[in-house]
C-alpha cells in the first residue's frame, strides 16, 4: 500500500465524516419517528452526491457509455468507486454476476426518497436501515484506512536500507 497523499487523507476524512453523519441522521429519523429536518435534508443530499461519484466510477469501470450532457468521469471517481465496492463486498451486498452500478443506484434512490419524505409513512424503514448500514460500513472502512496510515507512519524506522521513495503528499522534483 503506497502512503496516502495529503488530498487522499483529506478525501478519506471528508467522505468518512459525511458517511457517518448521513448514517447518524438516518438513525435519528428512525429512532425519533420524525422525517428529516431541513438541515438534515441538506446532509442527505450531500450523501446522494457522494453516491453519484461512486456511480460515475462504477459506470466507467463497467464500460457504460456517457452521454454528452452527463458528468464525465474523472480519475478521482475510480478511487471513490473503490471505497464503495469494498463496502458492498464487506456487506455482501453484491453478487458475483451483479452490476455494482445497479446496487449503488438503488441505495441512492432509497436515500433520495427518505430525503424527500414529509411523513414517516413515506419512508420504508427496512430500506432506511439498509442505507444507514451502507454508510456506517463505508465510514468504518475509511476510518480503518486512516488508522493503517497512522500505523505506517509510526512504525520503527531503520537508519539504513531506506530505498523506498518518500510519500507523495506533495509534488517534488
Amino acid at each position, binding site marked *: 500500500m*503506497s502512503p496516502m497523499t*495529503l*488530498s487522499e*487523507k*483529506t478525501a478519506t*476524512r*471528508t467522505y*468518512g*465524516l*459525511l458517511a*457517518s*453523519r448521513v*448514517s*447518524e441522521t438516518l*438513525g*435519528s429519523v428512525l*429512532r425519533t419517528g420524525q422525517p428529516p429536518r431541513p*438541515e438534515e435534508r441538506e*446532509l442527505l443530499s*450531500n450523501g446522494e452526491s457522494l453516491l453519484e461519484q461512486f456511480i460515475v466510477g462504477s459506470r*466507467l*469501470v*463497467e*464500460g457504460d457509455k*456517457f452521454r454528452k450532457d452527463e458528468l*464525465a*468521469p*474523472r*480519475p478521482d471517481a*475510480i*478511487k471513490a*468507486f*473503490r471505497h464503495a*465496492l469494498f463496502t458492498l*463486498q464487506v456487506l455482501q451486498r*453484491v453478487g*458475483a*454476476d451483479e452490476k*455494482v452500478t445497479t446496487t449503488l443506484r438503488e441505495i441512492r434512490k432509497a436515500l433520495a426518497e427518505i430525503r424527500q419524505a414529509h411523513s414517516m409513512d413515506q419512508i420504508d424503514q427496512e430500506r432506511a436501515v439498509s442505507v444507514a448500514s451502507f454508510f*456506517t460500513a463505508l*465510514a*468504518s472502512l*475509511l*476510518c480503518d484506512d*486512516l488508522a493503517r496510515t*497512522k500505523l505506517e507512519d509510526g512504525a520503527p524506522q531503520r537508519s539504513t536500507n531506506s530505498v523506498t*521513495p*518518500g510519500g*507523495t*503528499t*506533495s*509534488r*517534488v*522534483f
Partner: protein
Amino acid sequence: MELPQEFFDSYVGDCIGRCRAVEERSAAIASSEFPSANPRKFAQLIGRIAGTLARELEKSHPRYAGDPSNVLNIIRFIDDFVQELGADLRYAEGAVTAKLPWSLTRPLEDLIARYLPMRKVMLRPQWKHNYSIIIDDLGRLYRDELRNLIAQHELSRVFADFPEGFHIVSFPSIERKNALLHCDLAHEIGHLVAELFLESEKADYLIDFRERIVQQTREESRDKPLPPLWEQQEIIDRLDRAALIRRRGLEELISDIFAVRALGPAALLALLGIAAGQSPDLTPDEKSAFYPPWRTRLRFALQALEDGGLRPPKPPDSKFPFMADIQRELNNALTRLREIVDVESDRRSIDEDWLVRLAYESISATMPGVRGFLDREYGPRFPSPDSLFDQAYRLVPRLWDGVPPNELGEGSDTRPAALESILNAAWFYRVTFLKDPVAQAAGAVRPDLRVLNRLTLKAAELAYIQGRYREWVEAAKK
C-alpha cells in the same frame, strides 16, 4: 469496536486537549517575524479551525449513547483532522524570516502574481533535499472537511480574511542561499499551471484506457476467465494505475516546460542541477513514485527552450571582453544536453511495461494541447527572449566586478533588472567562468559560487525595492 463509556469520555477529553494545544501553538507561531503576511494568516486559520473542532467535539460527545458506532467514527475523523492540523503548523513555524532566502520571497510572490494572480504561496524550508509544492489549495481542503460539520455562517467566520488558492512551496533547507538552484522554484509554480491544465482537459482518455485494459485483461485470462467481480477489481487497479502514471507524467513535464518558458536557460540549467545526481532512465512506476525518466523530462524541457526561441542569441556590443565566450559556453552546454537527450534509453524503460506505455502514448498525444494551453494562457506573460537575453548578458559584467546584478543603465539613468534576467545572468556567469568545481569553492579574485549566490540574492532584493520605489514615485507624480 465501540468503547466503554468511560474510555470514550477520556478519549474525547484527550481530543479536546489536542485542539486547545493546537490553538495555543498557532497563536505563539503567529507572533513570529515573517517576510510576508501569508504564514501568519495560515497559523491563525489553523488556530480558528482547532477552536471550532473543540466545540464540535463537545457537541458530539453526548450523542454517543444513542449511536455509538457513528459518533465514535465522527470523533475519530475529527481527531485525525486535529492531529493533521497540528502537524501542518510546522509549515508556518518554518516560514520565519530567519529560515528563508528572504531576499527572494517578495520578488517570487510578484513573479507568481504575474502568472497566477489568484494564488498565494508560502515558502518554507524542509530538511529533505528537494523542492516540493502542495498542489491542493489548503484552505479549500480544510473547508471541505469542515463543511460536513459546521453551518455555512460559521464556516465563513473561520475562513474570513484567509486567501483562496493557498499553497505551500518547500525548498531544501541547506540550500537556503543557493539562488541559482532556487530557479527550480519555477518548476514548483509550474505544478499549479499543470493542475489548471489537467482540470480543464476532457477525461476521454479514461474511456480509451478502459477499453484497452479490458482487452488486455481478458487476453491474459483467456484460458481461465476471471469471475466478473475479480475482473472488475483488476480493471479498477489497472485503470487507476494508468491514470496516475499519465497524471504524474504530465504534471512534471508541464511544470518543466512552464519553468523553461518563464525563466529561460536558468530553469533548464537548475533542472539539470537536480537531474545530474539521479539515474536518467528509471521506469515511471511505484518504485520511482511514477516520476517520468529524467532523460524524458530534459528532452521536453530542451524542446521547450528551442520552441520558445530561447537559445542564446548573439550578445550585445560591449566593452566586456568575454561576451562572446558567454554565448559560446551556453550553446556548448545546450549541445551537450542535446547529446544526452538524443539517446533513447528512457523510451525503452517506458516500453517495458504495457500500462506505462499506454499512459505515455496518451501523454504524447496530449502534448500539443499542453503547448497550445501554455501559449494561450501565459504566452504574453512569458518574458520576451530578446529582452531576457539582452538584460542577462548586460548584467554579467557586474557579477564579474563583484557587484549585485540588480540594475541596467548608468549614472542616474538606471532601471531595475527583471528577476528572470538576474537569475539568468548568474547562470551565464557560472557556466562561463565557474566550470572548475574546485575554483567554485575556492574563492579567488573573481566571485566564486558562494559569492555569486549572495550577489544574486542581493540583486533580487535590490531590484524589487528599486521597482517598488519607482512605482511609488510614479504614483506620487500623479
